[in-house]
Every structure is written in C-alpha cells, then in structure tokens.
C-alpha cells in the first residue's frame, strides 16, 4: 500500500512542532528508488530533552503514543497509533552512521504535501545496513547496491 498518507502526516507534524529527523531504513531506500518494502518508517534524530518534548507533541498531534520498547539506554523511541497500525521509530544511534549531523548534511529534502521530509542518501542506508548485518539487512543489500549502480549510471 502507499505510504504517502503517513509521509504527509510526518512531514506536516514535524514541521508544525519543528522536530528535525532524517528518514532512514527501507522507507528511505524506497524513496531513493529501491524496490524494497517495510512495515514502518524509521528516523534518526538527536536525543535532546527538547526533541523528546517535540516527539511527545508530534505523538499527541497524530493521536499516537510514544513507547520505549527496549531497555532505557537503547535510544529507540516508538511512536505507535493502534487504530491504523501507524508506527514511526526514532533512533538516536544507528549502526554505521557516525553522527546525526553528518547524515543530515547529505540527506535530501523531499516534499510531501506542503512540507518536506529529510531522506537519507542510498550510500548512508547501505553503510548502515552493512554495519547492522542482520539477516533482513543482508537480504536487501544487493537490491540497494544495484539501485545505487543505476543511479550513478543515470547521473554519470
């Protein structure tokens, strides 16, 4: 199914509450042209007290709740809305990504509705999946690499 309604909601709500986050994972890879699928949207953000307040406001705005599904130090905050299964994961640490700032500096702004979302580059997504090295990451890596090859070929 199309992720457009969720992407528009995220872009609008982040803009409204001035929450800055970069879309990563398979959702970002799909927006970069990879034929991959996902159940949720993953974001990297900076875990500051102000951003956690903004995250709570975004959740309230969307009629969702913020959960910490793993141990407190994990840096993962899950925004969940039961009625339609909306799930946004916010991570302050991502395998293979040295810093939020570096990821952000390379990210592309993509417009959804009246606002924009920052989307990680395919190179960063590949780097992250290679570092995470879980079976689901290894499964999509050849597709992501092939997409990157095609992008380079088209742009070169």
């Amino acid at each position, binding site marked *: *199914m*199309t992720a457009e309604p*969720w992407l528009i909601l995220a872009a609008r709500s982040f803009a409204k509450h001035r929450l800055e986050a970069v879309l990563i994972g398979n959702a970002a890879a799909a927006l970069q042209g990879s034929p991959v699928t996902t159940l949720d949207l993953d974001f990297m953000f900076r875990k500051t007290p102000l951003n956690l307040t903004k995250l709570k406001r975004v959740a309230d705005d969307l009629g969702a709740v913020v959960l910490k599904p793993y141990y407190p130090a994990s840096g993962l905050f899950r925004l969940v809305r039961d009625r339609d299964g909306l799930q946004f994961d916010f991570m302050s640490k991502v395998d293979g990504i040295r810093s939020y700032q570096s990821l952000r500096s390379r990210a*592309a702004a993509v417009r959804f509705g009246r606002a924009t979302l920052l*989307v990680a580059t395919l190179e960063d997504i590949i780097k992250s999946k290679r570092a995470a090295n879980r079976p689901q990451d290894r499964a999509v890596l050849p597709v992501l690499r092939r*997409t990157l090859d*095609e992008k380079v070929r088209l742009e070169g």
Partner: protein
Amino acid sequence: MKKSDSKAKRGTALRRESDRALVQQIRRLLALPPSKRTNFLRKRLPGGGSTL
C-alpha cells in the same frame, strides 16, 4: 552429464532474467520523482504476517 549441463544453463538463464527484471523495476522507479515512489508500505495482518 548432459542433463546437469542443461540444468545449469537453465539456472543461469533464470538468474539473468531475474536480474534484468530487477534492473527494469529500478529504472521504472528512478524515472519517477521521489515523492511518487511511495508504494512500499506493508500492512500488518491480524494473527501475524503482512501484505502490501
């Protein structure tokens, strides 16, 4: 010997065809603007599993 040769050839042909289909799919997606490459969300099904 002959049978395994033809099996290997079939396997190679299938891999080549699968690879060609993947590249075609990627090219179709890259021809769209990023904001239109949004058909990637899987929906959770009650009782487990997911569907596009």
